[in-house]
């Protein structure tokens, strides 16, 4: 199968937005307001933290907030000089959205955490573990969620057996991104499963 025809191609997966469970974006924004716009989206790898942060950014901008989204990862680290540059560029009307806060050194994070109290309107981070900021929302996954997402990505009439999805989910320990990547490979190897 050609990459562009693969139902699990990256832009199709990215088009699936975060599905809030037991809450709404309106409630989430109220909660964030109550937290002085300082909170953490917490969850394991592949649970939708980055997707939720991007969706939250869109909602905040619709509400008239200025935001700045920063991705921190292995290829785009936020070392001490980069951290200082970021702090220098910060403005009081901005909500800083920081994806991958776990990867910032503790000493740099301590400075950033303190600095953003007075030099930014707010800060929302994603992290694998709670503790860096009060938890705004905990991202979780389930086999049912994987099935729902896969059903949305697949052309109608070409379902993947639920047992296969469940075993993928178990093997990847709930990491939906890893599950969807493996499904990409399965489709790349075969014209259909």
């Amino acid at each position, binding site marked *: 199968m*050609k*990459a*562009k025809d*693969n139902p699990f*191609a990256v832009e199709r997966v990215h088009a699936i937005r975060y599905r809030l469970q037991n809450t709404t974006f309106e409630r989430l924004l109220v909660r964030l307001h109550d937290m002085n716009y300082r909170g953490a989206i917490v969850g394991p790898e592949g649970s939708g933290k980055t997707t939720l942060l991007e969706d939250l950014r869109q909602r905040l901008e619709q509400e008239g907030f200025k935001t700045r989204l920063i991705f921190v990862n292995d290829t785009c680290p936020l070392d001490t000089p980069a951290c200082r540059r970021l702090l220098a560029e910060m403005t009081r009307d901005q909500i800083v959205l920081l994806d991958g806060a776990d990867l910032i050194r503790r000493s740099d994070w301590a400075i950033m955490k303190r600095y953003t109290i007075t030099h930014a309107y707010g800060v929302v981070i994603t992290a694998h573990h709670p503790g860096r900021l009060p938890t705004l929302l905990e991202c979780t996954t389930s086999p049912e969620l994987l099935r729902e997402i896969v059903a949305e990505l697949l052309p109608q009439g070409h379902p993947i057996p639920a047992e296969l999805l469940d075993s993928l989910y178990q093997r990847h320990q709930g990491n939906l991104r890893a599950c969807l990547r493996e499904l*990409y490979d399965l489709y790349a190897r075969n014209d259909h499963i």
Partner: protein
Amino acid sequence: MDRLAVTFDKSRTAFAPRETVYGTIRWNLDASPRHLELSLFWYTTGKGTRDVGVVQTQRLDKPGAHGTKDFSFTLPESPYSFSGRLISLIWALELTSSPGSEIARQEITVSPTGREVILDTPR
């Protein structure tokens, strides 16, 4: 009629590198946008991170709520349209209005043969 549309002369959608693409844009909106923008670009899709290259953009300021305009773009030498199992490179023209979220996109094939290059992956 679509609110935004991109069509090519003689309904062609396959072109050779360095060839000039001729076509027409049409718009039929509720109010005049600030501007319309027509972009020629390529992007990759597949398993990995998406890569994008915008080759040329033409902007039409205060175009009115509806109208038509001819356009032409000269394609570069490369990259060719191609597809493998892990990555495809797709060329497209995209018309957008601002403000607003209206988009019209037409994909084209760019290659000397008029067909996308198929990358054969050994099994």
